[in-house]
């Protein structure tokens, strides 16, 4: 009890300003670390939430080249394929380019069947499926622009020119926090009809096929079979799992992720230096006291515990404060940067890493002071007093 009291008093009562500044330093470091880690986990979220039973088929040349709608029936024949859906990236702009969000023309019935993680109330779903000009939007997207069911929303086409009116028929929620609630889906038929009227060449073409298979184990085999079918045709295909597809996208920005990872590491190294400096100062000042404790018969272990404990106490206080701040600040980030990060949630794993980093910092900072205190010869230490 007495030693614990001494530990607390050492940590917080000796130099209040120094303690506060050190704790604050750790708080900010942990906050920065947590936010950077969250950016990284968010980046990989698409990979995490992808389903192993979903395949994506796209044009072998590039995703920007379409595939004929006629492939649909052929793909459906492949053994192991349960559902075939398809869609196109619409790339519409709502009022201003800054209001970016993902919008797709999809085959609605099969698409929703493939994505059970998008939860649409049955009435909304019915209304959406019945209305060719209808669309559904994620909860966050609808909230962002204040859309209500029945509202007419106009998108300015970039790939498909003109002004396109859609009617909001339903709002979907994510099955869990990691599901993107900022997307916009409408009927592919509506797009195709309009294209038919103007540009015959672009009609009956889809951007991608989404395929549901019966089990993850057959994904490689099904992919091969599909691609083999269209080999040597005008539009050759490449089929891969949704996960591989998303990873391919992320790979393009891998360098940024590596940079962020490095920065998060540097933040921890800097705070390590700061805490180590504080611990070195405080323990040097207390050399005499450690000598007295040793004189009274306290072993090196107790003194090591006092120093280590103090380092842990200061660092963990900062860490807990930092974690407590990470949540609201990440929330604010998510709101303001919704365009770039549709989902910005602090993962439990990030909090765990925060703690691990804090404990590492505490230990690293205390190592040299502990070693010095253990080496201290009592008679020598006492001479330094006065």
């Amino acid at each position, binding site marked *: 009890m*007495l030693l614990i009291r001494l530990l607390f008093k050492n940590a917080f009562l000796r130099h209040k300003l120094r303690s506060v500044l050190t704790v604050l330093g750790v708080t900010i470091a942990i906050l920065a670390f947590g936010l950077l880690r969250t950016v990284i986990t968010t980046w990989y979220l698409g990979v995490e939430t992808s389903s192993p039973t979903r395949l994506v088929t796209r044009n072998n040349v590039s995703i920007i080249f379409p595939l004929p709608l006629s492939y649909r029936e052929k793909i459906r024949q492949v053994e192991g394929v349960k559902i075939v859906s398809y869609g196109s990236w619409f790339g519409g702009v709502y009022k201003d380019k800054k209001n970016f969000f993902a919008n797709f023309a999809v085959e609605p019935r099969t698409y929703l069947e493939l994505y059970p993680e998008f939860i649409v109330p049955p009435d909304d779903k019915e209304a959406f499926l019945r209305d060719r000009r209808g669309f559904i939007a994620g909860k966050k997207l609808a909230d962002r622009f204040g859309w209500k069911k029945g509202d007419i929303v106009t998108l300015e086409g970039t790939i498909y020119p003109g002004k396109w009116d859609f009617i909001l028929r339903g709002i979907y929620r994510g099955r869990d926090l990691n599901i993107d609630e900022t997307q916009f889906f409408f009927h592919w038929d509506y797009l195709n009809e309009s294209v038919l009227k103007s540009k015959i060449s672009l009609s009956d073409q889809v951007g991608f096929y989404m395929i549901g298979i019966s089990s993850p184990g057959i994904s490689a085999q099904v992919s091969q079979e599909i691609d083999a079918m269209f080999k040597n045709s005008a539009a050759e295909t490449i089929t891969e799992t949704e996960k591989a597809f998303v990873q391919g996208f992320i790979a393009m920005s891998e360098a940024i992720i590596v940079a962020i990872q490095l920065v998060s590491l540097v933040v921890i190294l800097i705070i390590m230096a700061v805490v180590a400096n504080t611990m070195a100062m405080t323990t040097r000042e207390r050399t005499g006291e450690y000598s007295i404790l040793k004189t*009274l*018969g306290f*072993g090196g272990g107790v003194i090591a515990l006092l120093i280590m404990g103090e380092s842990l106490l200061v660092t963990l206080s900062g860490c807990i404060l930092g974690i407590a701040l990470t949540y609201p600040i990440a929330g604010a980030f998510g709101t303001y940067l919704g365009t770039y990060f549709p989902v910005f949630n602090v993962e439990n794993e990030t909090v765990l890493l925060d703690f691990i980093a804090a404990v590492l910092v505490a230990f690293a900072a205390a190592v040299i002071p502990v070693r010095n205190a253990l080496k201290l*010869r009592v*008679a020598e230490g*006492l001479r330094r007093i006065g």
Partner: protein
Amino acid sequence: MPPEQEPIVRIRRVSKSYRSGSRVLPVLEDISIDIGQGEFLALMGPSGSGKSTLLNLIAGIDRTDGGTIEIGGIDITKMSETELAEWRSLHVGFIFQFYNLIPVLTAYENVELPLYLTGLSRMEKSEHVRTALAVVKLKDRMDHYPAQLSGGEQQRVAIARAIVTDPTIIVADEPTGDLDRKSAQDVLDLMGRLNSESRKTIIMVTHDPRAARRARSILYLEKGVLSHAPDQTPF
């Protein structure tokens, strides 16, 4: 009242020198003395003569180069660091010139500190601390921090800390060196009472002849050699 004949401290042929680089500085050479149970010994001598060194050796916080030091029949020069630390916590009470209290602990907590290493229950600890603080007449100040106490009061807290474990010997290195006359007087009175009433064995290093006169006997250390004060009867 003479001290009992049975020596509690038996020092034989102790030598100690310090090395700094290639230079060797001999401080103590072939020192032998007996200190009886219940003795109150003052150790005097010029600065740098090795008084603190000798006291530290007796108290088990420094190592001899040769010779033996037996305290209560146990040779402490043969002990390991760990054994020595445990032995100190049981057998030695320390009083320093600069009090050496822990500034963030109250008077009570400072006195309680050495009891941490004993197996006493909480009740027993509290009882011991209160008794020790009563002996030094500071019971009413037990919640005060060192900074809230005068030098003399701090030294009395240090004395309470030294006696709280009921040690075999009490060592004091210039306990009045940093005090004004009145406070020094109080501290010496207290040490005198501990010796005469509680029969504590006290070894005190001092420069102050007034302080030395309060002791039962005086030893002089000069150039590494111990001698009896001319006006004191040898024991």
